[in-house]
């Protein structure tokens, strides 16, 4: 099935190991970072929305109590 005769042969990539493996490493690092950045963006958007809602509720309460609202 495979074109490689041994595990060493696979790692060696026919002598192209110094180019093939870094190329794969860079691509998968980019993929991992994409997932991390996406999760971070969503988390920050949630935090920002939560803060906004808290401010809105405070001003609404202040308004109901007869104080000047911002």
């Amino acid at each position, binding site marked *: *099935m495979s074109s490689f005769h041994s595990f060493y042969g*696979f790692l060696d990539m026919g002598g192209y190991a110094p180019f093939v493996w870094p190329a794969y490493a*860079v691509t998968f690092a980019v993929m991992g970072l*994409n997932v991390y950045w996406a999760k971070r963006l969503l988390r*920050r958007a949630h935090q920002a*929305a939560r803060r*906004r809602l808290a401010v809105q509720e405070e001003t609404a309460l202040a308004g109901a109590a007869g104080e000047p609202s911002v």
Partner: protein
Amino acid sequence: MAWTWFHRLASPPHIYRTAGRLTPWFAWPAALLIVAGLIGGLYLAPPDYQQGDGYRIMYVHAPSAWLSLMVYTIVAVAGGIGLIWRMKVAHAVAAASAPIGASFTLATLVTGSLWGKPMWGTYWAWDPRLTSELILFFMYLGYMGLRAAFEDVQRADRISAVLAVVGLVDVPIVHYSVVWWNSLHQGPSVMYLGKPTMPPSMLVPLLVMFLGFTLFFGAVLMMRLRGEVLLRERTATWVREAIRT
């Protein structure tokens, strides 16, 4: 009545929920396809008659390059739709896509460079394909930099969309550069004159990787889109329910 689907599509709460639901449907097939493509491309596929095992860089380089072009097209088209129909969700798609596209453009340049060294004897040349891809990377950076320069999301959306649409001219230039000019870069390898240039044992893992990378983009886009949609909702009551669950 026929337009209700369009309004539903454009409604932020609907997008927020749907994107959340769709994420695993993109992510799991993407993961499976990429693992299958890795086994097929790195292990099962035969070595190339000219490039030996060095050509295996193709299995990450070509799908990254495909994403770099496809995602830029999405940024420009979504930005254009946002400009014309004043659709917040379209702008959110553009803003969410750009960093993903930029990162894969960088991956394309780096993996291409690592492929170029053993095959052409150089990491870099000011060749039409390489140069136009580098310009694409700068277009992404310009788009993201321009967005970051505005405090107001709506202004950032409109102004960056104009830049994205103008920059779209680079996409066909990247794609056809190997056909129009005498390039160091090899020609199209999936299809040439309507026939694949590779035997199925090489081609199938590549097609699997193309699909896997595209679905991966879909999964990351769904996650980012939810964030971008939330950032654009100032007072909506649905946000209250969305973030409490």
